């Protein structure tokens, strides 16, 4: 029963895409591609929900995919609670995005294509999720990248979109290469890429000797590189904000809820091979990402970019959780974030859609507006692309009465992401992360984790600040652009309904419906014996984590310890079972969230302070934030330029040196044997079919001179030739 269900989940969206492609080859398109794709997604959603209780057999299917003599690579499904949750998240968000898009994309010239691409994306993502081996994950992984490329570049007539999709693909590809190298390392060691079961990597990893820990750490970090790319972690995060060039539903589906979560999912899946040192690297990358992206988000004016940076920041939270060993917390935040971030994006889509209708005939004025606004912020300029007027928060304001549903649902999501206590799911998952990190810090007495805790706490506060900044600027206050405001309207029901459903899912109460207690509890447990504590703990006296030498089983054992700790909304479990760490974390998180909201209120609602004055006071810092820490400048100015320069150099080298040598040799040879080669050249070069006659003519003209007609001369030549030939043969 399980295998057919999974097959349906995979095949339904794939079929929707295939139908599109086949019709496309015949220069037609399927009459109702939107309905077809949406129906396919709903079918997949139904099957996923059915699988919720079907995780008893984790390996329902394995097929031999490649057999190379002694080595066999197999493909198969793996189904545990994490898989099911991911399946549901993906299908649910995807279904809602499909429905939303029916309204949002209405009237687009490439309307059917959009749905076909969404279907292909869903297929890829689902394939990634259910694969039981690294190769399958990698395949899904890259396909997801492709779909992302296609969807970001959906409006490819815009140069900014064309640039953005290329950037996204290439940046993630850099990470993927790292992942690929990691796969090669694992394959070299274990001769398999299967993860589970008796012959899988997770089992084999147990038999490694202590001397191979460093090697395994390297492999783990390399695999993590893939996640860095896909989940937009520093330093490969720059593609994600640019990816907002795609249609907003795409941003919601791919760049907030599912694809970027694939990186987190991968790290969670690979948990059993992470060593303490690779975990720490992951934690640091996550922490740095969280704070860097949050600080950048503060100063954005484009509503989608704010959300994009917030996504990057939240993904950093998840990575940090996994790196700190809070396996469950990471995955939990992944699911809650998927819903509220999808909601935020769709909400912003709704806002943009409201403005978009009249965007066309007010283009010029907005261009003027933009210029004015830019003058106000003359010390800063958005790099790369201008902010489209319908996405610029400085054009918004006071929309809450115009778009009540959108406002209400977005507010819920904002409260959730900001970590407003108790009634919103985001609070619980974020708290689980903070608690997990603090607990690890206290438990190991590790300086690293204390630092990380501080960083992430700060990031949480900043998150609350910029999210409320967004709400205040968009929905409160007076309309800044009256004309646009007048045209705005609430979105049609196909767009509002998905918002309402997502808003419901952002409340823990609804989550509980399917997110059962203790459903996700621990990572895959391959080991038969638990490592002893002595092996596990770092040297607590020095406070140094002594990474290279301690057993790598730490992270998973830690996670196992936290078993059942952060399951969903059970706040009581969260602090009761785990001592002081979680209580402290919770209190601190409430405080910082409150502070963030308060500051935001003061700045953007009450207008006690103006952002401009602060910006002038902390000018260097502000500039740094505004320019996104100059990552793009560095990449464009150094890496890309270097690559292009190198390629030009190689090409020039090829043309002038290598080819030059070849041609030079030819020239010299020609000069030496000028007469002979000249004759040969003429014969060979001219010896082309349509000019054969000509050649024979001209050659004949030359050769004729030999043909004196004097018989004796012929004889001389013939005999001389014979003598010569015989002499040559005698001599040789």
């Amino acid at each position, binding site marked *: 029963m399980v295998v057919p269900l999974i097959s349906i989940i995979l095949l339904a969206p794939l079929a929707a895409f295939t139908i599109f492609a086949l019709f496309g080859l015949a220069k037609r398109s399927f009459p109702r591609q939107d309905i077809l794709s949406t129906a396919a997604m709903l079918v997949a959603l139904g099957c996923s929900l059915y699988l919720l209780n079907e995780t008893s057999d984790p390996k329902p299917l394995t097929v031999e995919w490649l057999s190379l003599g002694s080595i066999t690579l197999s493909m198969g499904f793996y189904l545990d609670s994490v898989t099911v949750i991911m399946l549901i998240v993906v299908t649910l968000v995807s279904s809602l995005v499909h429905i939303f898009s029916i309204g949002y994309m209405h009237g687009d010239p490439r309307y059917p294509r959009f749905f076909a691409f969404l279907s292909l994306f869903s297929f890829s993502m689902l394939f990634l999720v259910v694969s039981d081996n690294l190769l399958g994950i990698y395949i899904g992984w890259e396909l997801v990248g492709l779909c992302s490329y296609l969807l970001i570049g959906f409006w490819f007539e815009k140069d900014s979109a064309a640039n953005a999709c290329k950037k996204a693909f290439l940046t993630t590809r850099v990470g993927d290469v790292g992942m690929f190298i990691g796969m090669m390392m694992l394959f070299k060691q274990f001769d398999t890429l299967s993860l589970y079961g008796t012959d899988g990597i997770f089992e084999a990893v147990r038999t490694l000797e202590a001397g191979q820990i460093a090697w395994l750490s390297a492999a783990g970090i390399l695999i993590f590189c893939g996640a860095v790319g896909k989940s937009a972690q520093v330093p490969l995060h720059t593609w994600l904000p640019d990816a907002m060039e795609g249609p907003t539903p795409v941003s919601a589906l791919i760049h907030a809820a599912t694809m970027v979560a694939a990186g987190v999912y991968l790290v969670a899946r690979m948990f059993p091979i992470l060593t303490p040192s690779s975990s720490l690297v992951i934690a640091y990358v996550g922490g740095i990402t969280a704070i860097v992206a949050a600080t950048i988000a503060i100063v954005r004016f484009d509503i989608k970019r704010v959300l994009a940076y917030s996504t990057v920041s939240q993904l950093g939270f998840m990575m940090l959780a996994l790196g700190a060993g809070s396996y469950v917390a990471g995955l939990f935040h992944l699911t809650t974030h998927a819903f509220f971030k999808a909601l935020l994006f769709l909400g912003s889509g709704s806002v943009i859609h409201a403005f978009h209708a009249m965007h066309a005939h007010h283009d010029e004025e907005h261009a003027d507006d933009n210029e004015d606004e830019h003058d106000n912020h003359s010390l800063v300029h958005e790099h790369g692309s201008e902010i489209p007027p319908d996405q610029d928060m400085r054009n918004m304001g006071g929309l809450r009465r115009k778009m009540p549903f959108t406002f209400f649902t977005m507010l819920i999501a904002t409260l959730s992401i900001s970590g407003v206590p108790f009634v919103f799911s985001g609070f619980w998952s974020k708290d689980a992360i903070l608690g997990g990190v603090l607990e690890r810090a206290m438990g190991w007495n590790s300086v690293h984790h204390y630092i990380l805790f501080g960083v992430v706490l700060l990031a949480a506060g900043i998150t609350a600040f910029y999210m409320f900044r967004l709400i205040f600027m968009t929905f409160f206050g007076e309309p800044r652009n009256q004309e646009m405001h007048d045209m705005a309207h609430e979105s049609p029901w196909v767009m509002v309904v998905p918002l309402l459903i997502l808003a419901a899912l952002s409340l823990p109460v609804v989550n509980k419906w399917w997110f059962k207690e203790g459903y996700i509890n621990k990572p895959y447990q391959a080991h038969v014996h638990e490592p002893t504590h002595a092996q596990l703990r770092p040297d607590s006296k020095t406070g140094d984590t002594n990474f290279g030498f301690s057993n790598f089983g730490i992270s998973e054992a830690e996670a196992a310890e936290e078993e059942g700790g952060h399951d969903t909304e059970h706040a009581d479990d969260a602090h009761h079972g785990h001592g002081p760490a979680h209580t402290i974390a919770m209190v601190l998180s409430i405080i910082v969230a409150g502070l963030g909201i308060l500051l935001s209120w003061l700045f953007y609602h009450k207008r006690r302070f103006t952002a401009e004055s602060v910006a002038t006071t902390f000018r260097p810092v502000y500039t740094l934030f505004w320019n996104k820490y100059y990552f793009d400048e560095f990449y464009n100015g150094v890496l890309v330029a270097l690559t292009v320069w190198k390629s030009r150099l190689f090409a020039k080298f090829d043309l002038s040196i290598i080819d030059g040598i070849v041609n030079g040799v030819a020239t010299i040879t020609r000069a030496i044997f000028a007469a002979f080669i000249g004759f040969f050249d003429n014969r060979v070069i001219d010896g082309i079919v349509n000019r054969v006659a000509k050649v024979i003519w001209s050659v004949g003209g030359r050769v004729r001179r030999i*043909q004196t*007609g*004097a018989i*004796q001369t012929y004889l*001389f030549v013939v*005999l001389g030739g014979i003598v010569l030939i015989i002499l040559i043969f005698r001599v040789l």
Partner: protein
Amino acid sequence: MSLQHYLVISSILFTLGIFAVLTRKNAISILMGIELILNSCNLNFVAFSRFVEPAKNIVGRDDYLLDGQIIAIFGIVLAAAEAAVFLAIILAIYREFGSIRPDEVDTLKG
């Protein structure tokens, strides 16, 4: 008298014939050179047939000893035919060009 004796004589004849053909400026002298060459060949045939046993000897027959002679007879016949045609050509050329010096008769076009 071994085979070599004959072969040496024949090769000298051959070379002299060649020399004549190469250097003489008179068509008839050239013809004589050719006759020398043909004679040297005939001598070779006869000598070889006298000395060399064929690879595939039919048992009980030794008429192969005459094979070379018969070839030589054919050679003489050919020489006669050749001489006749050659002289006829020489006469025709002489009529046409008024000369039988080969280096003067070098027009290829008919």
